[in-house]
């Protein structure tokens, strides 16, 4: 219980910092809206009853002050509208503010070294989950906090108003409102917790199964499993439908409970009025006022219905998002190597979390500053892992790592939905257009960009859509060339490019690499040809390190894949 409450803290803090005045005024305005609604109805009832009684004789009719109450009625009608308008503006503004901060904090949370790898393993599923989680978080304020504020304000005020008629009546009404009005949503939230979670999971499963069905359609067809997979998806939808149905049943029961409680309150106040009036304790207009207040008082609580049924889903989102919002522990930081050395690994072992065998085992390697090293070996040998280790992306289970600051040229070209300029400036935010053009020129992309109608302002689609594979790789290269780190780590830099383009890209990298240390992971001959040393990796261990000119160097190169 305490652990669960603690999980709420980072999210609660998110709501409370920064936007507090706006969030609070949203709550106040929502209370004002509800109050003026109840007051409008109550005052109208009182007014009509009072005028009816006064109108019975001409004398009382003339003496009756009509203007104050009728002005009050009109004022409340206007005040209610204004408060509602203000409430909607402030609550939305506040929510947008929180969401803006949430997105930034979430990004920072996911960008931490250890976590980023987790995201890379199941990108589609985790990212999908993340969008739904973000979307369900605003429910916490809009559909829980705001209605609660309005409802409690109305319960309190109604209690006070009725207490003026009779103290016991006021107290009982207020207690009834608070207990029943919050009790029903709480019961609904508790009952809905499991189905709401099951629904969220089922939707994820449905989604990933659809992806598997479509993307792997040929595999299923040839295995004769297509019909079975369709049937399985039908079963997932039935499961989803069952959870939906359970939630709807809870919502239906909540509706009935609120309806019945409202009717009970109304008839109870009616009986009380009848009894009290029989004792001659007050005049009829007060009875009308009390009845109309009773009629309207439970209404704000009913607005909690949706928030309470969704609460299970919202708390699930909170639980998943909260760890990403915790203040980041300072990264351990990689120790600097001794002078003259660019990277130094001593007896390092790396293991994927949960895996039985390590992916890198007892690796010791020292790379001199200015050296060109090629890490070669069959696929799955651990080449990319070794680069990630040097780049500080993953930590070592045992052993010591000391490296200069490095830039990793990733195997997959990752470009962003943004203009070319901002895609480039990720590498160097201070770079002006002249420097960007220079980098494009060095990457062999100047002519292509020159030919684009918008030049550096050309917008790229998702994943760099709009560029050819070669252009995208060159753009990534331009970004690398803008990086002024002493160590460049290249992970299969020309994979997927045709021979001529690949050689051109490699030549351009080498032309700008003077004074830098370069480590390239590859299984293609052309990428290893410039190396001073070959590090041969097999099944996670270094089996040989061969310098240029040493026996075996040429043979090792020759064993690599030609273009």
């Amino acid at each position, binding site marked *: 219980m305490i652990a669960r409450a603690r999980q709420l803290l980072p999210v609660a803090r998110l709501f409370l910092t920064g936007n507090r005045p706006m969030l609070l005024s949203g709550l106040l305005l929502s209370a004002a809206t509800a109050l003026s609604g109840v007051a*409008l*109805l109550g005052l*109208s*009832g009182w007014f*009509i009853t009072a*005028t*009816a*009684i006064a*109108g019975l004789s001409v004398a009382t009719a003339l003496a009756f002050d009509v203007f104050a109450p009728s002005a009050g009625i009109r004022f409340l*009608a206007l005040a*209610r*509208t204004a408060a509602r308008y203000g409430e*909607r*503006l402030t609550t*939305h503004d506040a929510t947008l503010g929180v969401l803006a901060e949430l997105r*930034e904090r979430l990004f920072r949370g*996911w960008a931490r*070294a250890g976590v980023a790898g987790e995201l890379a393993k*199941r990108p*589609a599923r985790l*990212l999908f989950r993340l969008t739904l989680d973000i979307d369900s978080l605003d429910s916490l304020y*809009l559909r829980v906090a705001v209605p609660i504020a309005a409802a409690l304000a109305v319960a309190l005020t109604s209690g006070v108003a009725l207490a003026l008629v009779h103290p016991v009546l006021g107290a009982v009404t207020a207690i009834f409102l608070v207990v029943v009005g919050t009790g029903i949503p709480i019961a609904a939230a508790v009952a809905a917790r499991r189905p709401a979670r099951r629904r969220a999971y089922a939707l994820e499963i449905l*989604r990933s199964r*659809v992806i*598997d069905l479509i*993307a792997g359609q*040929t*595999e299923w*067809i*040839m*295995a004769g499993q297509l019909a079975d997979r369709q049937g399985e998806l*039908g079963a997932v939808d039935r499961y989803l439908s069952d959870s939906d*149905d359970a939630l*709807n049943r809870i919502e239906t*029961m909540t*509706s*009935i409970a609120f*309806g019945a409680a409202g009717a*009970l309150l109304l*008839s109870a106040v*009616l*009986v009380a009025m*009848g009894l009290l009036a029989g004792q001659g304790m007050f005049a009829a207009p007060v009875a009308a006022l009390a*009845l109309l207040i009773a009629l*309207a008082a*439970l*209404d704000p609580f*009913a607005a909690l219905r*949706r928030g309470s049924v969704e609460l299970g889903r919202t708390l699930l989102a909170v639980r998943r998002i909260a760890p990403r919002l915790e203040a980041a522990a300072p990264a351990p930081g990689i120790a600097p190597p001794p002078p003259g050395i660019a990277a130094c690994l001593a007896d390092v072992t790396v293991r994927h979390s949960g*895996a039985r*065998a390590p992916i890198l085992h007892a690796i010791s390697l020292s790379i001199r500053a200015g050296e060109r090293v090629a890490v070669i070996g*069959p696929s799955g040998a651990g080449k990319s892992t070794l680069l990630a280790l040097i780049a500080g*992306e993953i930590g070592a289970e045992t052993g010591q790592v000391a490296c200069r600051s490095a*830039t990793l040229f*990733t195997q997959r070209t990752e470009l962003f*939905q943004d203009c070319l300029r901002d895609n480039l400036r990720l*590498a160097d935010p201070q770079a002006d257009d002249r420097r960007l053009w220079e980098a494009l020129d060095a990457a062999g992309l100047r002519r292509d960009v020159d030919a684009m109608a918008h030049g550096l302002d050309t917008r790229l689609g*998702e994943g760099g859509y709009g560029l050819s594979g070669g252009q995208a790789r060159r753009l990534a290269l331009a970004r690398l060339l803008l990086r002024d780190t002493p160590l460049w780590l290249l992970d299969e830099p020309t994979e997927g490019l045709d021979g001529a383009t690949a050689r051109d890209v490699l030549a351009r990298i080498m032309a700008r690499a003077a004074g830098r240390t370069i480590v390239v992971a590859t*299984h293609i001959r052309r990428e290893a040809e410039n190396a001073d040393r070959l590090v041969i990796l097999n099944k996670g261990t270094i089996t040989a390190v061969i310098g240029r000119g040493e026996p075996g160097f040429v043979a090792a190169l020759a064993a*690599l894949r030609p273009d």
Partner: protein
Amino acid sequence: MIGAGTINMRSGSGTPPAASCPSASARTGSTSLADEGLSDDRPKRSARTLLGPALQVAASLLWIPQAALISLSVGDIAAGGDIDAVLINAGGVLALGIVRAVVDALGGRVAYRQARALLSHHRRDALATLAARSPLDAGRPGSGLAASTLGEQAEAIVPYLARFQPARLRASIVPLAILGCVFVWSWVAALVLLIAAPLIPIFMALIGWRAKAASEAQLVELGGMNAFLLDRLRGLATIRSLDAVDLTANRLRTDAESLRTRTMAVLRIAFLSSAVLELFAALGVAMVAVYVGFHLLGQLPFGAWGSKLSLSEGLFILLLAPAFFEPLRDLSAVWHDRAAGEAALEALQRLAQKGERLPGAADGASADKPSSLAPLSVRVENLRFRHAGQRAPVFDGFGLTVAAGEHVALLGPSGTGKSTLLALLAGLSLPESGRIVIAGETLTDRNASLLRRRIAWIGQTPHVFAGTLAGNVSLGRSDVGRAAIQSALQSVGLEEVAARRGAVPVGENGVGLSGGEASRLALARVAVAPQTGLVLVDEPTAHLDTRTAAAIADALIALARGRTLIVATHDPVLAARMDRIVRLAPSPLEDAA
């Protein structure tokens, strides 16, 4: 709120987002798509689909007798009256209230169940159509699009059908009924309501028109914020390696803040339209209250058909006034359900559009295994094939004969149709003309499914499903046991990887497997199915290092021993290891077409 939601328990669900701003222009729009969608599936809108909304209308109308009992009681109390009558009335109010709550909830439940059933129906339909499309059909929707349409987007149908449609029916019946009741007692009060109600759409239209376009654009941008975050998270490895985490985070923040400013500028107008609705509803109630009050005082003696209203009658009119506006406000609160629901129905119908059909798609899986384990012969005669929507045929007059047990390499530059030929041999699509004869049987729509069971196929990029390695090998085939999976993993050299991974699942799209491991996995899938006499393989060694490529070729040849093997490849080393090489040249007719 005025009009106490007690009048309708379905109201007041928090603050609807910007898109909900009710706009008369949208209401008077053309035929609703959902109606068409419904009528497609169900020829007539049966009484059953109207049951839920009708129950909710009835529940709303039950407020009228309840209000009558309340006002009668106040009249009794004012008259110093008799407690027994009040008690009886109170009992009536309670009973009616409970009945009303139950009937309303029941109506909602019925409407919900129908809507949910329709969602399942649409999902099943779209999936069945998608699954029955040939993999060679380039117009097939991508898996990401299909997943988001069938998953979260399709969900929008339920609130649309279960909330919006009933709300629309209520808004068109309940106000009229209440107006009638008020009219019976006082034509002036009825007139006040009548004037306030039509003014609502006029004013809302004026404000809404401008706001609608702007807010829709804004919503797209709001969705764009999520897209921006996801886009950057997808490229996190690059952002981290470029040391651009701070830069990107700050950019996210400033973009979100500027979007917030712009969104609020739009919302200020958009919310005005709902404020107008609120204002007229509130003023309507206030005017009725003030009129009745002045009337009862005798200062406005007209309006009640020549007589003077009693206290109970006046109070009754007052109690009905908010209920007159309530359905309109409910409708505006669920307005955004409509746009989302219609978009979802449209998207689902697009997914369910038929395309090029997979031969034998209608045949379910039958349990009987092919008895013969013999290698299959293949003969292609006078083949002509064209991709849908393309004028030039890939093949025209193509012929090929492969003896049973023969190993053949298809060699040729890309674009000569190697992959297409393999797909045609696998019965994934039927030729325009000519014949494909496998083991003496001409491949047709009727026997495609049966023949496929004797053919194994390895695509260029084998799809790796999120799950365990073993599950990826068995592919859910019930006849593939644990021992078979183990020996298959061993035969393709994956046993070490399997042991190293333990129970750690393979990620989406094979994350965590190297290219070579994915190729081996595809081989293992074939190895567990010994009944296949023909093995079709597309580019098994592309993008692999020499050593891995050689190992894969070894495994493949071992696997194909005693079976017919056709391999499409660029790799001369692999091609040389086959019995025969068939060179595919670009079709001479390609330019003529």
